[in-house]
């Protein structure tokens, strides 16, 4: 079928703010979708409040709305824009769910909007558990057997029918609590009895337990004519035990044979045909490891994290092709984007092994349970390409940027466990599982034993054995050519080898190069070299002896270093920076711009963005390899967040030309004590500080200035190991932690100023001129990490005098540090005094926000600065003259993190952000809050529980306003007493820890009788760190699990209440964002 000619304008739904399970991959898929639409000359409209994305630049989309992706807002845009088609598959579960709801309420029909791609009944038959099982059976694809029971006798019969072990899932409980795996009747009895009690409806599901089965996935494309192909298959190393998002995944599958591969492939094609998939989908199977029995677990009828991975793993642009199919093309009409002359209706062949490794950030969360299981907890991932599993795995570990150089021979090596401990660790996976397999092998535990405990296929364990064996070989033998070759083929880095031999990485590198042991550059070409392919998609491997491409000397270019995996504090905004830098350089006449990155969830790793894409490690060793191969004019490290920035000094020492601010100046800013000394020279105030090398000095300083103090190491991002310390005991702990995180750099301790405002400034300088993008005010007071704080442009509590001072300081500092490119400054405002806290000479988290609101693309300006071009004349106060408010609101993913506390502190905890613009502060804020999931009720009940009289006092106005708006106020004893006296008519409720006292908060929460909660932790941050108040924690956690908003800071509570008030008499605006102003 040719392109559907009736289409003129297409609406695309994005996925909103980044959360665990819905991350940057949807910027990749949405951007490709918009690109596909644009190429066909059709108009596109995008709704997505995730401001830090490429797709919300007005580059690919004709009209961009930074609005919540929910039925109300989407309907209002449909009414306004009148699109004739809608794409639901490119914005994750958020977009899909929204689409289904819109269809159910008849909106699509009302406005004549065609769903493009998989139709609603197809979506429903994969999303609804029962419909899914039915349709799989109809397609001849087996599914898991299970039975719902309400008493033990039925459970016993069901278990006997299904055969032990069985898993018991409890209906309607929180986070799967109360369920478990039963291997026999005794265990079954215990779990079922417990589960029946925990279930609100007295029901449990008894299901076959298949945790030890293999988890295999297929990515399938299908067009309207029913042509279908499998683009990629993948195998999960940690079996069915662990959610695929938290699993270590290889592509293609490694341990299944031809029969199994094609059995599952055929089943996938049957299933998708039956369901009526149009475009892309992912089907997940469990495959018995002892027979060829299999079951289909689920189908995702949309682009997903797995499909982004499959795209990058194969070079087949799934999202783009899927969008073309949605527009009406059939598969054989589409062309393979890599060969440019063969059809897209084919199945890529790979001649490498891809290893995806999740990135967890458990250390950021207090109380969180790091065990891996059926709920996804990782915040990002990396993908490594190699020609052995060992090479891919060790590359992947380095890519994570967690301080590890591979599976073994790490800085913090040598953990010891008893046999009992290691067995426990092998059977209950946490984020260290593969390291623990290596430890077990070193302890002499057999492969079979490890397999039986861990359910990791012996093939993978044998490969880890190879790594362990190679480690001991490196240690015990001379570093001759064969040993070095073997080590490199097994994925060992120079650092690891150096550590084993007690040498320096540089000496290993020199020796290697002398022996001619250097990696080959290979293409990812979708067809395993069978045909010639002109592709710029490259990786390095030691599994080869020849390069696929050569770089002519007249193609000497610039290498832009990307940001690596998404994590807390470094997310899609740095990908936005990377991609915009590439475009900026190209627009300024640079023909050869290469990108290095390893995150499959990004736009920067789309190979059509740049001249050459290196899907590679962001490590010094690999960047030197790339430089040896490319011989570039220079390397840019200032847009890839802290990961790239940290490489600056090392690369410069090795003679690499760092383009932008010099390594020397970056170091002056990053090194806390050098930076502070510079500020003193400029007579720019900063909170009292001191660098120290021992605990004694730190203690003395803290005593002098008084607690609280902030302890922080250098060269870190988003507050890693940065702590507010309230006591001598804590000081001891955190000083050690800080020196561990950044051992080569000094640790600085400074006074933590309570009751201050925090301000961010984003700007660009070329060493002569400085452009201030905007001054951004934090709505939350200092102490809440800048990444977790709500932010506002223009500032609304700063006097003109303060704004002037900030402007002056910012310019002075940028020029003093010879900034060439982007910079970000953080200020503290205390009693009308301006203090500098931090300078980052790199792109910052807030730059997309500033750029889009002020309509000045700061990274475009930065590219000019880096190329030594004059900056365009931008009016000094342009940002102040924007007659718009922009508010950025953090998105949290606590729901996914069993046990995590949601009270905010100095460590950043949010996983993403949304930003909305409006004509007034509350116009923008109401949309911002809705975007990150707050329900803004117009009536109902609020629970208030506030610690400390100061806090209570600050909230009086807000509570009064709530009452005035007609909300019923519930409060815990002390809080109630206080507000009753001030305002009257407050109802007392009792703590969760006193269940016998009624009315009790727990009951009210379960009965959904509370619409939102204001819970300010006692005496602000103090007691959170001195000792957790368990009861408050219980309230926060329970409400979170029930989806009830909890406001944990005074500022948020105030803003929330004022927004409710504003909404009584106003309607939020729905205007598209304006394109960036053209710069000459």
């Amino acid at each position: 079928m040719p392109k559907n000619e009736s289409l003129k304008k297409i609406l695309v739904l994005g996925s909103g703010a980044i959360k665990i399970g819905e991350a940057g991959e949807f910027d990749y898929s949405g951007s490709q979708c918009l690109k596909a639409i644009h190429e066909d000359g059709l108009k596109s409209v995008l709704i997505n409040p995730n401001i830090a994305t490429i797709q919300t630049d007005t580059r690919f989309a004709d009209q961009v709305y930074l609005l919540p992706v929910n039925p109300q807002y989407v309907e209002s845009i449909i009414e306004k824009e009148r699109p004739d088609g809608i794409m639901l598959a490119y914005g994750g579960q958020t977009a899909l769910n929204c689409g289904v709801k819109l269809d159910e309420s008849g909106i699509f029909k009302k406005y004549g909007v065609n769903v493009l791609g998989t139709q609603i009944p197809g979506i429903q038959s994969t999303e609804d558990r029962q419909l899914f099982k039915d349709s799989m059976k109809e397609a001849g694809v087996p599914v898991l057997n299970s039975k719902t029971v309400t008493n033990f006798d039925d459970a016993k019969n069901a278990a006997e029918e299904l055969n032990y072990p069985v898993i018991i899932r409890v209906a309607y409980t929180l986070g799967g609590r109360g369920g478990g795996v039963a291997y026999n009747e005794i265990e079954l009895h215990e779990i079922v009895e417990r589960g029946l009690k925990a279930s609100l409806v007295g029901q449990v599901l008894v299901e076959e337990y298949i945790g030890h089965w293999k988890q295999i996935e297929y990515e399938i494309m299908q067009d309207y004519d029913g042509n279908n192909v499998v683009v990629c298959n993948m195998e999960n190393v940690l079996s069915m035990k662990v959610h695929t998002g938290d699993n270590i995944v290889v592509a293609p599958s490694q341990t299944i044979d031809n029969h199994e591969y094609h059995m599952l492939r055929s089943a996938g094609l049957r299933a998708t045909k039956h369901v009526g998939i149009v475009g892309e989908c992912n089907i997940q199977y469990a495959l018995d490891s002892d027979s060829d029995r299999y079951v289909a677990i689920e189908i995702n009828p949309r682009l997903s994290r797995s499909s982004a991975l499959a795209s990058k793993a194969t070079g087949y642009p799934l999202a783009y092709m899927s969008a073309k199919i949605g527009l009406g093309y059939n598969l054989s009409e589409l062309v393979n984007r890599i060969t440019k002359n063969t059809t897209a209706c084919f199945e890529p062949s790979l001649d490498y092994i891809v290893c995806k490794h999740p990135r967890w950030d458990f250390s950021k969360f207090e109380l969180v349970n790091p065990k891996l299981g059926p709920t996804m907890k990782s915040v990002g991932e990396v993908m490594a390409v190699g020609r052995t599993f060992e090479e891919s795995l060790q590359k992947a570990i380095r890519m994570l940027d967690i301080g590890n150089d591979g599976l073994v021979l790490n800085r913090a090596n040598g953990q010891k466990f008893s046999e009992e401990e290691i067995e426990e660790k092998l059977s209950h996976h946490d984020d260290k599982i593969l390291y623990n397999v290596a430890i077990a092998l070193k302890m002499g535990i057999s492969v079979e034993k490890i397999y039986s405990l861990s359910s990791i296929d012996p093939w993978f364990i044998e490969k880890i054995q190879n790594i362990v064996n190679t480690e001991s070989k490196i240690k015990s033998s001379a570093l001759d050519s064969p040993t070095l070759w073997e080590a490199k083929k097994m994925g060992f880095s120079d650092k690891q080898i150096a550590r084993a031999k007690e040498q320096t990485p540089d000496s290993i590198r020199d020796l290697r190069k002398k022996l001619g042991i250097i990696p080959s550059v290979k293409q990812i070409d979708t067809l395993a070299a069978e045909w010639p392919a002109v592709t710029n998609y490259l990786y390095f491997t030691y599994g080869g002896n020849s390069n696929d491409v050569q770089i002519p000397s007249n193609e000497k270019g610039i290498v832009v270093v990307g940001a690596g995996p998404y994590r807390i504090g470094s997310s899609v905004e740095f990908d936005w920076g990377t991609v915009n830098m590439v475009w900026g350089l190209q627009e300024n006449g640079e023909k050869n711009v290469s990108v290095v990155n390893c995150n499959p969830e990004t736009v920067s790793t789309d190979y059509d963005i740049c001249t050459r894409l290196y899907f590679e490690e962001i490590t010094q060793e690999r960047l030197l390899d790339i430089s040896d191969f490319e011989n570039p004019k220079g390397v840019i490290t200032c847009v890839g967040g802290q990961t790239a920035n940290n490489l600056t000094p090392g690369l410069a020492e090795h003679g690499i030309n760092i383009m932008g601010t010099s390594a020397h100046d970056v170091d002056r800013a990053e090194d806390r004590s050098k930076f502070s000394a510079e500020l003193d020279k400029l007579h720019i105030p900063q909170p009292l500080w001191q660098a120290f090398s021992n605990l004694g000095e730190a203690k003395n300083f803290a005593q002098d200035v008084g607690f609280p103090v902030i302890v922080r190491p250098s060269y870190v991002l988003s507050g890693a190991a940065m702590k507010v310390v309230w006591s001598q005991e804590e000081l001891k702990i955190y000083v050690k932690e800080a020196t561990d995180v950044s051992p080569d750099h000094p640790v600085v301790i400074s006074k933590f100023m309570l009751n201050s405002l925090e301000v961010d400034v984003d700007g660009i300088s070329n060493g002569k001129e400085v452009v201030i993008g905007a001054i951004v005010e934090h709505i939350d007071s200092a102490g809440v990490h800048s990444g977790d704080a709500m932010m506002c442009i223009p500032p609304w509590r700063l006097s003109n005098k303060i704004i002037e001072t900030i402007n002056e300081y910012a310019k002075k500092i940028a020029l003093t540090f010879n900034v060439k490119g982007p910079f970000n400054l953080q200020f503290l405002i205390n009693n009308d005094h301006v203090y500098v806290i931090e300078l980052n000479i790199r792109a910052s988290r807030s730059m997309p926000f500033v750029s889009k609101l002020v309509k000045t693309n700061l990274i475009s300006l930065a590219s000019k600065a880096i190329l030594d071009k004059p900056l365009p004349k931008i009016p000094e106060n342009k940002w102040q003259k924007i007659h718009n408010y922009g508010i950025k609101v953090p998105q949290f993913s606590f729901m996914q993190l069993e046990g995590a506390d949601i009270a905010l502190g100095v460590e950043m905890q949010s996983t993403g952000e949304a930003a909305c613009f409006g004509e007034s502060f509350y116009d923008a804020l109401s949309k911002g809050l809705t975007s990150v999931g707050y329900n803004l009720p117009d009536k109902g009940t609020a629970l208030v529980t506030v610690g400390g009289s100061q806090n209570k006092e600050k909230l009086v106005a807000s509570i009064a306003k709530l009452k005035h708006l007609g909300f019923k106020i519930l409060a815990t004893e002390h809080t109630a007493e206080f507000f009753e006296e001030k305002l009257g008519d407050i109802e007392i409720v009792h703590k969760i820890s006193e269940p016998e006292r009624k009315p009790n908060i727990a009951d009210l929460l379960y009965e959904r009788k509370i619409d939102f909660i204001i819970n300010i932790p006692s005496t602000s941050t103090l007691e959170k760190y001195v000792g957790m108040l368990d009861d408050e924690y219980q309230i926060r956690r329970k409400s979170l699990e029930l989806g009830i908003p909890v406001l944990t800071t005074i500022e948020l509570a105030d803003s929330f209440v004022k927004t409710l008030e504003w909404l009584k008499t106003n309607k939020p605006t729905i205007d598209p964002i304006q394109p960036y102003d053209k710069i000459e």
Partner: protein
Amino acid sequence: MVGYTEALTDPSYNGQILTLTYPLVGNYGVPDPNIKDLDGIPKFFESEKIQIRGLVVHELSHTASHWNLSMTLDEWMYNEKIPGISGIDTRELTKKLRTNGVMMAALVVSESEIDVEKIKQELKSAAHYNSERFMNEVSTKEEKIYGDDKNSVVIIDTGAKNAIIRNIRELGYKAILVPWNTSFEKIMSYDPKGVVLSSGPGDPQNCPDTIDTAKKLIEENMPTLGICLGAQIIGIAGNTETYKLKYGHRGQNKPCVNLENNQVYVTSQNHGYGIKPESLDASDFKLWFTNADDKTVEGIKHKKQNCIAVQFHPEAAPGPFDCKFIFEELKQLMEK
């Protein structure tokens, strides 16, 4: 990545040194050759032995893991005395083959320095692959009968894979495997409902007897299906011409378009020769399938008679099952 057991025992690879583009080989080991299905056909293998003369891989998995394995790939090749080499940059080798075409090669093992020039000379004087006569090697010497169904299909064995026999059995027919040079009359003496001309190695012109038989099968309107080499033989019998492709089509991911309904199928292929597209016009055949990438001939149908042929492998093993329906097409011809 998958399918080495099937590929190594495929008679079409007879006489060749095979290299695999996937770098990790042998992961799931090799199943037990003694396990047979109800008809006595080895369950997991395409013939009785390893057919290739040598194997070239990037990394051989020395340990293997699978519920169905009985030995490693290394052990299997050792037992069958077939040499192999690992540690090769097979991507680079593939690029060489794609540029220069299929070539003669030698695997040399020596404790002393290898004299490459001398080996090259020896290779030059060795019998060339194209000149080899494979039929004595790959074809059955006597008839073999599988199953006892009433109706039968004769399979002319020019190097048939077991999967072809399995598929005929699945249709509900007795399968009679006969030598490559069996005469038309002999075939008719079995009173078959249909005939399959199987896949196999080498140049179709090296099977003149089979071509003659095919001519008569077409003439007499016997329902006939040709697969791969069998398709080329049928083509020649129906006045098309064949030619040698530069480096052939080999793999499990080849898209083919069915011109009757424009559906695209992913097929398993392994052929070095093909039917000349321009020779079809003057022949008795019309084009049925084309390769979606290079538009070569992948299937033909006789303009009048009950004769169909496909260049790909509908029997799969290794490869996808998407085109199993080709056997159903034969069944329809037989039941017409």
